[in-house]
């Protein structure tokens, strides 16, 4: 049961998108999301759809995985669609009570749903092609300008905390499973009973889990200090991130798509 929880969704492969610099991927994701929202007619939206579909194809991540991410967001998607049905002008198709569904409304609803879908697919493309560690490194690197306002160590600390948190998620899941089994062996009933009883049944699991997490934290801190960790000061990286020629190519393609969206917006 606990094993099914996924964190970070990295999908191992060696596509162009996997190899693109994680910092660039993050910046481009933000830029592209903005431009997808700027696309305001069928033609510019079609370009955005085409682009996102090709990103998905190039990423070599199975379509099934992208669709899996859609499932979680489906209720929001449907809700947005229904709300938007009633905001629109044009020919009235159906009307009841004070509401009416118009051709404009349908157009609007479809448009909104496509927009959200693209958003999810594009963000999934980032998380599927970038390891959690690369993501935190990218965040650290992108936030590094904050050092000019005296927040240098804060940026490093934040990134280190994120890395450690990600690293320990599987460890804690394993630990939680062990403790659950141990309490079940003592006759604990975790599956039955009222809500109140079930919440109470969590105490024998949460307390040992909390205690062992604190113990682990102390041990980790000590181990880090033994290896002369002293925060971000003068620290270098084993894996340097470099912008390579192919990153410029990726950047150029994305810039062209953004430009295309604006041009199509103006032309039609």
């Amino acid at each position: 049961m606990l094993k099914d929880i996924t964190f970070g969704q990295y999908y191992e492969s060696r596509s162009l998108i996997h190899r693109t610099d994680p910092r660039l991927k993050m910046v481009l994701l933000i830029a592209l999301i903005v431009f997808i929202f700027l696309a305001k007619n069928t033609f510019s939206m079609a370009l955005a759809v085409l682009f996102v579909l090709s990103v998905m194809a190039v990423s070599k991540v199975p379509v099934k995985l992208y669709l899996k991410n859609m499932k979680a967001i489906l209720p929001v998607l449907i809700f947005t669609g229904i709300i938007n049905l009633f905001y629109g002008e044009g020919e009235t198709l159906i009307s009841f009570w004070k509401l009416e569904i118009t051709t404009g409304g349908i157009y609007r609803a479809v448009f909104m749903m496509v927009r959200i879908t693209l958003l999810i697919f594009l963000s999934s493309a980032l998380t599927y092609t970038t390891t959690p560690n690369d993501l935190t490194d990218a965040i650290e690197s992108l936030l590094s300008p904050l050092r000019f306002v005296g927040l240098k160590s804060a940026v490093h600390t934040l990134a280190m905390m994120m890395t450690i948190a990600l690293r320990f998620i599987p460890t804690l899941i394993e630990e939680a499973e062990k403790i659950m089994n141990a309490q079940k062996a003592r006759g604990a009933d975790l599956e039955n009973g009222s809500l109140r009883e079930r919440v109470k049944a969590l105490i024998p699991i949460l307390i040992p889990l909390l205690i062992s997490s604190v113990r682990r934290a102390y041990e980790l801190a000590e181990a880090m200090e033994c290896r002369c960790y002293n925060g971000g000061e003068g620290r270098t990286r084993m894996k340097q991130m470099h912008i390579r020629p192919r990153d410029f190519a990726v950047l150029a393609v994305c810039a062209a798509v953004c430009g295309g969206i604006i041009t199509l917006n103006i032309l039609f």
Partner: protein
Amino acid sequence: MTVLEVKNLTHTYSGNTPFINDAVSRVSFSAEKGEIIGIIGHTGSGKSTLVQHLNGLLKPTEGEVFVDGENIWDNPKEIRKIRSKVGLVFQYPEYQLFEETVYADIAFGPKNMGLAGDELKKRVLDTCRLIGVKDEYLEKSPFDLSGGEKRRVAIAGVMAMKPEVIVFDEPTAGLDPAGRESVMKIIHDYRQAVGATVIIISHSMEDMALLADKLLVMNKGSLEMFDTVENVFLNGDRLREIGLNVPIVTRVFYELKAAGIPVPDNVFTVSRAVEVLKGIKAGERGA
């Protein structure tokens, strides 16, 4: 009288991975009342997976587990009752302590069985007396105890359920010699008092030679041997092939034999070694 019987037990960890591997494959054995069975095997040989089937924490993919002649999965809703019949003490059990006082923690298991009031109190106090937890400890926080004491309290938490079969997964791991000895002693005392069957997973061949009646040897998920301690340790070559060994004192006697001193092969404990050596010395004097 057979208390526990495992028939053709197979457990497959699969999930959605393409690598289907049997963690435990077609294992059968049975345990008599009052017997001590040692389980030995290389890391990852399926020992821990096997014992989690004995109290129904894991459900076998194939095969059956019988406790007192009844298939424990005949009535899946009653599986919690099996856990008071077959106690399981995990590795490092002190990490499961959670209550405010030692007394409350030991009472957790019996309470889950439905005991209350005087009966519950008597059960906890009896267990404490049996394993030597002093009365003044009962109102202490379990987190204020030393490592060895925590371990004993955690073991008491399972013993308080009075299981007729009690399974230990490396009960002495990480303890100092005094701690190891005291844990071994309470296991022995519990068995004496309740007449329970004891199953111990251990990496210490010396402890096994001292304690166990029978040994169950696991290798890569399969049952390699299930026999008396003597018969298992006489297969030293096979044990070494699968990453195990015979007790150190037995190895010393192999060397003595190789050096031309006439000693038997079946010396597995230090006390037996002393006996044999004394015998030889007396024989030499006589000659």
